[in-house]
């Protein structure tokens, strides 16, 4: 049954992604976030149906915030999954298994694609519904992709927190901080992850998605760098770090007013 050469980790990561994704979808934390997203979508639909002249800009905001909050719940769910070994005192027996921690981090990161897919399908449904009632700009279709990468990125934040601050209290505190800034309309610090700040032009929206994706990869690389920081992780971290800086620069120059405070 055993062969002498060590097999590659790719199939392990894929199998872990399936298992972790399934558990993320079944977690109560994810369902709590999903309930908020559904509530926000319901409010959006109701207001769109009730108003005489509803507009996408005014009414879709509720839905956008609710999915942003759902993504924060995914962050907490991923963090809890990553801390499972510590919580259940299973660290020792897992250290005796051949799959390294980096493979498990990669599996969890890829597992976050499941909640990303589920929430994005709902976002897509919301956008499609809106298109039947309102004048929805075509670029708003990117909200679906934006939501997916936002979930993935916040999932990676959950992984980083679990790796470098392995306490069950850290992620809820970070989540609370994100909740506090989520409903704001000011183009201040947090707008760099807020979709509607850039869903006005195709170019900016694309840069925004690229920015979030690079951020997700950067966080994932940092999360997998413990206990052993390897060359592959360094390369991913460096490349995604450069991509983050470039895309953020483009975003800031595109979104922020020329002389006004933007990222303060």
């Amino acid at each position, binding site marked *: *049954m*055993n062969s*002498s050469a*060590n*097999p590659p980790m790719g*199939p*392990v990561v*894929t*199998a*872990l992604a399936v*298992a972790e994704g399934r*558990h993320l979808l079944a977690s109560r934390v994810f369902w709590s976030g999903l309930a908020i997203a559904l509530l926000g979508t319901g409010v959006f639909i109701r207001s769109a149906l009730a108003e005489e002249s509803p507009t996408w800009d005014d009414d879709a905001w509720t839905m956008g915030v609710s999915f942003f909050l759902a993504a924060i719940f995914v962050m907490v769910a991923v963090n809890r999954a990553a801390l*499972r*070994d510590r919580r*259940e*005192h*299973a*660290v*020792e*027996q*897992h*250290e*005796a*298994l*051949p*799959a*390294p921690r980096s493979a*498990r981090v990669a599996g969890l990161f890829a597992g976050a694609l499941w909640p990303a897919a589920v929430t994005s399908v709902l976002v897509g449904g919301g956008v499609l519904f809106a298109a039947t009632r309102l004048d929805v700009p075509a670029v708003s279709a990117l909200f679906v992709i934006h939501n997916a990468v936002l979930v993935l990125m916040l999932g990676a934040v959950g992984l980083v927190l679990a790796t470098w601050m392995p306490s069950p209290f850290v992620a809820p505190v970070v989540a609370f901080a994100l909740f506090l800034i989520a409903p704001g309309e000011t183009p201040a610090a947090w707008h760099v992850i807020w979709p509607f700040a850039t869903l006005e032009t195709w170019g900016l929206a694309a840069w925004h998605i690229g920015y979030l994706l690079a951020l997700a990869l950067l966080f994932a690389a940092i999360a997998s760098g413990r206990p052993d920081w390897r060359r592959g992780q360094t390369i991913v971290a460096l490349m995604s770090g450069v991509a983050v800086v470039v895309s953020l620069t483009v975003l800031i120059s595109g979104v922020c007013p020329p002389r006004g405070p933007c990222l303060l």
Partner: protein
Amino acid sequence: MSGIRLTGVSKRYGRVQALDGIDLSAERGITGLLGPNGAGKTTLLRVLATVQAPDAGSVELLGHDPADAEQRRSIRRRLGYMPQEPGFYDNFTVFEFVDYIAILKQLTDRRKRHDEVREVLGLVELTAEARRKVRDLSGGMRRRLALAQALLDRPDLLLLDEPTSGLDPAQRLRFRELVSQLPNRPVVLLSTHQTEDIAAVCERVVVIAAGRVQFDGAPDALRQVAVGRVWISDRPNAQTLLSWRSGDGTLRHVGEPPSGADLVEPTIDDAYLLLSGSSGGAS
């Protein structure tokens, strides 16, 4: 297949010398590890499980050096480890938990992996509980679940730390049957306080105390250590290491007998007691 070779292995935690120059080798078959609490058995198993590196000495497992990352991974692929206090994912079902461990053991073909999971659950008689949440299992069932994950992929090296603790008598007998009939006859190290288990299934027994090997031989040879040093009488004796009243009302003594003592056949417990030197450690 090479088994395990330890030469001069030492491990210290602060002021505590957990292992003190252990020399040990083992090939296929079951070796029992006996020793009082704090003797170093669990530390020894952790070193063998590649989760802890020794401070000094050399370790070779299944022909590989665990100090090298790639070789360590090769060892881990062929290793089954049941720690003394295994951790479980309470929200997982029994099947999901073992399946998850199987993935981490690099069993990536889904169908084969699921067949393997079903097989090990069958071996430990947890098939009927496969869909139950781990949090709903009894202590004995959790013990068997820990054993199931250790048996995945027919390991060549199987390390079992107190596997029968918490099992009822029938389950312990079933465990003996299982571990003594493993199809690929792996190298098994069985750390336990249950001397009956040692006598029942082990071909060899190693007694450890204060981080050192005190005895290494067959269970019967261990018992021979106590021949002539166990006797019965109807009166207490101040020279005995330990004595207790048997069911028939006589006192059974272990230690240096007085002249003319009524000697009886010793057990492994008696010999272990004499080797470990005090009744306090023989829990």
